[in-house]
């Protein structure tokens, strides 16, 4: 240090310089010091809390007192998790997450493709903002907007009436499972809001993957005589697939854990998130709530494992 020309920065002496030299000689020490606060915060507070939650699921409610029995570790709560009513909730949630993910992928793809392949300059920025604004807008406001849209006196019913298609809408609502009294209390309503709210999470990774498809590959494909559809089917789509899978991680996971959307727009039948909320709140059954919250973790663990094998993590 002392041999360098001090024309550029003032030469400093004392504790700070000594400390700086120490970090230079022992870079691991610097890394350790840098990492200590975030590791303490995330490792101790957050992971600690997660482990505490996991532990809770191995306790059970005492049937006589109605209080949690903290003396014995048991699998009783997990047995309860698999009784028909609770299993129903889990299956319903997984089915919803699957359909939401598929629909998001289908709607997101043209947007991502357009943004990645054709949009330039001003249009590119427009596409970016059209994805980012809904992504970062308030989650509750987005749900609120859909409450306005799906309300009986709202814009969607008005549109159907203007187009003289009210009969069609009513016929649809008369269908089993997807139908209901009105759109805002049907699975279809819940589905629409889920798709809307998580859509940007599907568009962004898909677009990123599409942007990484080298143009000379598609050029080569068409030079070799492939039709645009064949090029898409055999070159572009397989290369974009990891991006779609990366997006599906978000849409699937977010749908699995959400409890507010089905509570506000949907039938009164519970989803996993609602079950967790109900059991920890009014019912006071924290062990069952904890066991319920382990379900999405396990499902997501499996999902991530499969996604990793498809190379989706490189597309994140």
């Amino acid at each position, binding site marked *: 240090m002392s041999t360098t020309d001090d024309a550029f920065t003032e030469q400093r002496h004392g504790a700070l310089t000594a400390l700086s030299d120490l970090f230079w000689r022992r870079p691991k020490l610097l890394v350790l010091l840098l990492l200590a606060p975030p590791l303490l915060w995330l490792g101790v*507070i957050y992971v600690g*809390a997660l482990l*505490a939650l996991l532990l809770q699921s191995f306790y059970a409610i005492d049937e006589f007192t109605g209080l949690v029995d903290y003396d014995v570790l048991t699998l009783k709560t997990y047995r309860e998790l698999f009784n028909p009513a609770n299993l129903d909730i889990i299956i319903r949630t997984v089915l919803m997450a699957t359909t939401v993910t598929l629909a998001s992928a289908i709607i997101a793809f043209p947007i991502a493709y357009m943004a990645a392949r054709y949009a330039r300059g001003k249009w590119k920025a427009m596409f*970016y903002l059209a994805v980012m604004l809904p992504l970062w807008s308030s989650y509750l406001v987005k749900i609120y907007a859909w409450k306005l849209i799906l309300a009986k006196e709202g814009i969607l019913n008005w549109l159907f009436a203007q187009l003289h298609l009210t009969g069609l809408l009513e016929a649809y609502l008369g269908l089993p499972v997807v139908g209901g009294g009105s759109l805002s209390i049907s699975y279809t309503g819940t589905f629409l809001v889920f798709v809307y709210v998580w859509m940007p999470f599907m568009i962004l990774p898909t677009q990123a993957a599409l942007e990484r498809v080298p143009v000379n590959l598609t050029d080569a494909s068409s030079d070799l005589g492939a039709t645009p559809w064949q090029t898409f089917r055999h070159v572009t789509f397989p290369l974009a697939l990891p991006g779609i899978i990366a997006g599906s991680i978000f849409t699937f*996971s977010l749908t699995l854990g959400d409890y*507010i959307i089905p509570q506000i727009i949907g039938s009164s039948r519970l989803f996993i998130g609602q079950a967790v909320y109900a059991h920890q709140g009014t019912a006071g059954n924290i062990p069952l709530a904890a066991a319920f919250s382990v379900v999405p973790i396990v499902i997501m663990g499996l999902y991530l494992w499969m996604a990793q094998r498809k190379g989706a993590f490189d597309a994140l």
Partner: protein
Amino acid sequence: MHSDTPRAPWGLKLAAGAGLVFMIAPLLLIFVYAFTTEERTYQWPPPGLTLNWFAVTWGRADVWEALTLSVQVATVSTIIALILGTLCAAAVSGSRFFGREVISLLVILPIALPGIITGLALRSAFGMTDIPFSFWTIVVGHATFCVVTVYNNAVARFRRTSGSLIEASMDLGADQFQTFRHVILPNIGTALLAGGMLAFALSFDEVIVTTFTAGQQQTLPIWMLEELVRPRQRPVTNVVALIVVLVTTIPILLAFYLTRDGDQIAGSGK
């Protein structure tokens, strides 16, 4: 438009256009409803337009209290996230060590796991350790999942900040602190600002974790949630929704322009 860009097929244009309308139209609807004269229902089209509800909302003490709490929580959480996220990013990009992947996973975990799990985990941890609900219990939850936005932005910028710049600074006699102050910080500054603003927006909007860590306190999203579950003052809710859209939109536009300029300064392009 560049001439070398091929023209998009009509079907694709149509599908992408319909998709964009699907994305943006619901947000625009919020703007219209804030001015409706209808009080009791969500009637469309609005029977009349008025500015009256803005005045009514302005005079509402509960809205102001919720807003103040939300801003305070978001500010403190953002500061904590900025510190922790920058430290993490600096450590991860400054060196290669075996735990890098674990650190990344640890930072992403709070946002990757469903909010209800983070919320329930924190609540049961507070319960087990007899910590009463307070301002700080909300902040702990928010800061935890805000770290990732700062971290992601900072890591991306660190990656683009050329190592030779730092080496040049050291060769010219700057110590590590001077290098940080005069070379690294100006380079990552806009990325931190962008990450910080996204963290603020994330915290300002958060509701799921907050329902578990707030106790009886009302942040603005919790106020909103109550209105969604049991609508009582629809016109006030319409106005609050509009304000929330504006408050979250502005930082996003700013963050967009800041990071875009940063890309150009770094000269790496795309």
